[in-house]
């Protein structure tokens, strides 16, 4: 882990937060260096938004501390706020103001001098493909354009720490690409970025340090390659129709098992078993074997290995699904 001249740009320690009986965050530590992109990866309800909200000062933690550029956030809220660029999960722009007025307002709010506001607003508009829309009102934008403006408002004052909570939800492919490029550009200029997402391809495109958060705890952190190296266990995926013939799983480590439709079940078995060997185990009942494939190393499967839960469905969207 790298740390800058003055330590980490963001250092959150032992953050706890409960909603009634539900522990949303259970002693979370998160550090982000200048120029680093950290992707918080987790299912719905994992605690991503709660953590972002606490760092942004929108929510009070029950315990723990947040430091931004060495400043204690609770003791220096105004100074810390000036270093932050925050794009909350829900799209928020001023519908009766033009794109330019929205951008200039958020620059103004962050203390950008009047002379620089126009330049910076135009620059961020250019980055996010909003240049042609500067004189259009927020109410006249499409969904994707509004989402881009929403994120641009967080970037316009060139924050030192950028917090983006699922910035591409509802965005089209082109918008996603523009956002990712902008975020990478900002990080290249030295900003620290915390980025929550459901979409695994984005994490790959951002080349981010990945933090897997699950049920209020950070379970692991590393680059995609590091996580795959740590958690990929090889093996085979296979789908069976009807009842699994006895003896097929004998001596095999079952890493995952889940229903796949009405009468099918999907298994992940570990180890060095070859496809031919698996087919042989079915013997005369091989017709029940609907599919078999190698368990290839990818983020989706790493997530499942770390959290013990499927990466698809309600939560993290796997590569194949998100790419559609």
């Amino acid at each position, binding site marked *: 882990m790298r740390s800058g001249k003055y330590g980490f740009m963001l250092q959150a320690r032992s953050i706890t937060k409960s909603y009634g009986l539900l522990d949303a965050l259970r002693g979370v530590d998160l550090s982000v260096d200048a120029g680093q992109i950290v992707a918080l990866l987790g299912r719905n309800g994992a605690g991503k938004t709660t953590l972002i909200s606490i760092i942004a000062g929108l929510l009070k933690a029950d315990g723990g501390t947040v430091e931004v550029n060495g400043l204690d956030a609770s003791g220096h*809220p*105004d100074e810390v*706020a000036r270093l932050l660029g*925050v794009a909350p999960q829900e799209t*928020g722009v001023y519908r009766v103001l033009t794109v330019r007025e929205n951008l200039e307002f958020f620059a*103004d709010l962050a203390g950008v001098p009047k002379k620089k506001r126009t330049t910076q607003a135009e620059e961020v508009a250019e980055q996010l493909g909003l240049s042609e829309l500067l004189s259009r009102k927020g109410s006249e934008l499409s969904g994707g354009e509004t989402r881009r403006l929403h994120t641009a408002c967080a970037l316009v004052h060139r924050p030192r720490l950028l917090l983006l909570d699922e910035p591409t939800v509802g965005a089209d492919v082109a918008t996603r690409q523009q956002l990712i490029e902008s975020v990478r550009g900002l990080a290249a200029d030295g900003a620290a970025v915390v980025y929550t997402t459901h979409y695994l391809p984005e994490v790959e495109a951002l080349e981010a340090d990945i933090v897997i958060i699950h049920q209020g705890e950070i379970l692991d952190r590393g680059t995609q390659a590091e996580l795959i190296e740590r958690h990929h266990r090889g093996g085979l995926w296979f789908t069976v129709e009807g009842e699994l013939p006895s003896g097929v799983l004998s001596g095999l480590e079952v890493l995952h098992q889940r229903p796949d439709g009405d009468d099918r079940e999907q298994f992940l078995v570990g180890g060095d078993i070859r496809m031919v060997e698996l087919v042989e185990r079915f013997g005369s009942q091989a017709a029940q074997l609907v599919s078999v494939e190698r368990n290839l190393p990818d983020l989706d499967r790493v997530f499942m290995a770390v959290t013990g839960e499927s990466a698809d469905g309600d939560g993290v969207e796997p590569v194949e699904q998100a790419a559609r």
Partner: protein
Amino acid sequence: MRAAMAVMRAQTKIIRNDPWFLGVMFAMPVVIMPIFADVVGLGLQSSGYPDASGAEVVVPGQMVLFSFFVAGSVGFMVFREHGWKTWDRLRASAASPTSILAGFAVPWIGVHVLYSLAVLTAGALLVGLRFNGGSPLAVLLILVAYAFCLIMLMLLATATFRTVNQLNAVQNVGAMLLGGLGGALMPLEALPGWAQTIAPLSPAYWAMRGHRSVFLEQGGVGDVLLPVGVLVAAGCVLAVLASMRFRVDETKEFFA
């Protein structure tokens, strides 16, 4: 202070870009004034003001009454921020809660004063409202003090209620109740005794008292110091209560 100025500038642009509400609020008293001026004039003539045309009470009365609705806009702007999902963005900025409140209040005090001046001007053109020796500066002092008091009252209401429907209901009832009680709907002399007794509880009473002393009794600045002082003092108390009650992290329901 810098953040408050930024919020003020943005709110001013929002008001400027969305002027329809103010247009309607201006049209309403302008339409009503000519209807009631003659009747009220007759009443005033029989109450010791033989030269009164009725405009001296009807024009300020309508302005004082509809001012409640204009002032209510400050609350709707706060609720609208929640509806637009921009409230959290304000909170995450360097703007303190006090800066945010000031950023909303100050532009609306200015708008309120300009609105009042516009209604008075329309009254002069349509039903012949004249100073008749009264002090224009005194009128301006009343307008500013009344605007301050009403905006703070509406900020307190905004801080208190969680849904825009609650605010709307309270604003409507409050306008009719406080406006009527203060003599904005009909001259104070026409109200029952008990109503006249409790009338000073309404900011509208003090505003109407000030305007009457200028337009009916040729009053100067010295003659409006008491109503202006009461309105400013009440506004200060309301501002303190609003800032104590206001919770920036409280969710407000706005159905856009």
